[in-house]
C-alpha cells in the first residue's frame, strides 16, 4: 500500500503537467485568434488619420474595421458561451428571451458580413435564392443572438476551410421535422470518420489542423449545443472535398 502512494502521486503529477501544457497551448491559441483582428482594427484606425492614405482607401478601411469588429465580437462570444454551456443553462434561464425572427434574413446578413473575409482567397459566400428559402422565409421562435452565433460559427467554418476561388452557399429547405439551413463548401476534406467527432469540444479535423493550426475547436461544438437547447440540431455530411453543415430548425418552434 505505501509503495503505491508515491507511484500514484507520480501519475497524478504527470497528468497535471499534461493538463497545464494543454491549457497553455489553448491559451496561446486563443491569444493568436484575438491578436490578428485586434491588430488589423488598430492599424486601420491609424490609417484613417494618416494624410498619406487616400479617401477612397479610407472608405474601404472603415468597412474592414466593421467586419473585423464583428469577427472579434463573435469570437469572444464563443468563449463566453462555452462557460454558459458548461453550466448547463436552458433557454428559459438565458437573460435574452426567445422572439420570432426571420431565419432567411439572418443568413443573408451574415453572408454579406463574411464577403470581406472570403475576398482575399476569392471565396464567394452566397445565400441561395431558392424559392423555398426566400418565399418560405421560415420564422423561428428562439433566442436570436444564440441562433445568430450558430449561423455565424457555421459560415465562418465553411469560409475558413473553403478552397480558393470557390463558393460557400447557404440554402434552406423544408424538412420532415421542420426546416433545414445548409451551408455547403468545397475545401479541406472532412474524413468520414470525423463527421461526428468534429462536433466534440476542442476537436479539430486532421486536415483542418494542418491547414489552420491556430483554431479553437469550439465553433461547431457551440453551434450544436445552442441548437439542441432549442430542440434542433447541427449535423455534417462530407463527400470528397464537399462538406455540408446542416442546421435543423424544429417545426415546434417554426411558424
Amino acid at each position, binding site marked *: 500500500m505505501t509503495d503505491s502512494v508515491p507511484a500514484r502521486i507520480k501519475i497524478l503529477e504527470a497528468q497535471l503537467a499534461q493538463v497545464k501544457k494543454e491549457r497553455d497551448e489553448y491559451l*496561446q491559441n486563443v491569444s*493568436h485568434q484575438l*491578436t*490578428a*483582428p*485586434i*491588430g*488589423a482594427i*488598430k*492599424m*486601420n484606425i*491609424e*490609417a484613417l488619420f*494618416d494624410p*498619406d*492614405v*487616400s479617401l477612397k*482607401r*479610407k472608405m*474601404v*478601411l472603415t468597412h*474592414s474595421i466593421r*467586419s*473585423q469588429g464583428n469577427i472579434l465580437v463573435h469570437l469572444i462570444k464563443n468563449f463566453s458561451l462555452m462557460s454558459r454551456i458548461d453550466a448547463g443553462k436552458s433557454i428559459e434561464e438565458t437573460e435574452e428571451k426567445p422572439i420570432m425572427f426571420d431565419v432567411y434574413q439572418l443568413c443573408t446578413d451574415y453572408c454579406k458580413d463574411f464577403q*470581406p*473575409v472570403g*475576398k*482575399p*482567397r476569392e471565396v464567394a459566400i452566397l445565400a441561395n435564392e431558392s424559392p423555398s428559402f426566400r418565399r418560405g422565409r421560415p420564422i423561428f421562435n428562439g433566442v436570436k443572438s444564440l441562433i445568430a452565433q450558430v449561423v455565424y460559427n457555421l459560415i465562418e467554418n465553411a469560409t475558413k476551410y473553403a478552397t*480558393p476561388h470557390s463558393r460557400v452557399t447557404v440554402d434552406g429547405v423544408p424538412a420532415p421535422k421542420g426546416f433545414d439551413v445548409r451551408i455547403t463548401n468545397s475545401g479541406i476534406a472532412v474524413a468520414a470518420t470525423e463527421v461526428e467527432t468534429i462536433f466534440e469540444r476542442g476537436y479539430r479535423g486532421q486536415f483542418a489542423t*494542418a*491547414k*489552420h*493550426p*491556430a483554431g479553437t475547436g469550439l465553433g461547431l461544438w457551440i453551434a450544436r449545443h445552442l441548437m439542441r437547447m432549442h430542440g434542433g440540431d447541427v449535423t455534417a455530411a462530407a463527400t470528397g472535398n464537399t462538406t455540408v453543415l446542416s442546421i435543423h430548425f424544429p417545426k415546434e418552434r417554426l411558424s
Partner: protein
Amino acid sequence: MTKKEKTILFADDDWHLVEALIAKAEGKGYRVLTATNATDAVRYCAKEPVLCAIVDIMMDPGPDFPDVAPHQGGLAAIETIRKSFPKLPVICHSVISDRSLIARLRANEILFIRKGETTLQAAWTLIEAKITGVQSFG
C-alpha cells in the same frame, strides 16, 4: 524611378489584415502587388521589379511547393526568395511568437514585424528603411 519600379509585394492570405499597410504604401506612391500563397509570391519576385517583399508565415504553399506543409508556405517563400534573389529585402510580418524561429529569421537578415503589436507608422518606417537601406534593422 517610375511607379512600376517602386513595387512592393505583400504575401498574405489574410490581406485584409495588412490593408492599412497596403493603403499606406499606395499613398506613398508605391505600386502594390498581393500574393495569397508562396508560389505566387516567388513568381512575382521573379518577374516584377519588387523592391521589398513583406511575407506572412501561415499561408498556402501553392503548386510550386508540393512537399511543404499547408501552414508553412510563408517560410518556404522566404527561404526561396532569399536564395534566388539575395539582394531583395524580405520582411516577415506574422503573429507567431516562436522565439527560436524569429532568431533564425533575423540571423538570415530577415526583419521580423509582429502583427497586432506594431503600429502602422512603426511598420511603415521599418519597411521604408529596408527599401532605402538607410538603417539596418536585421
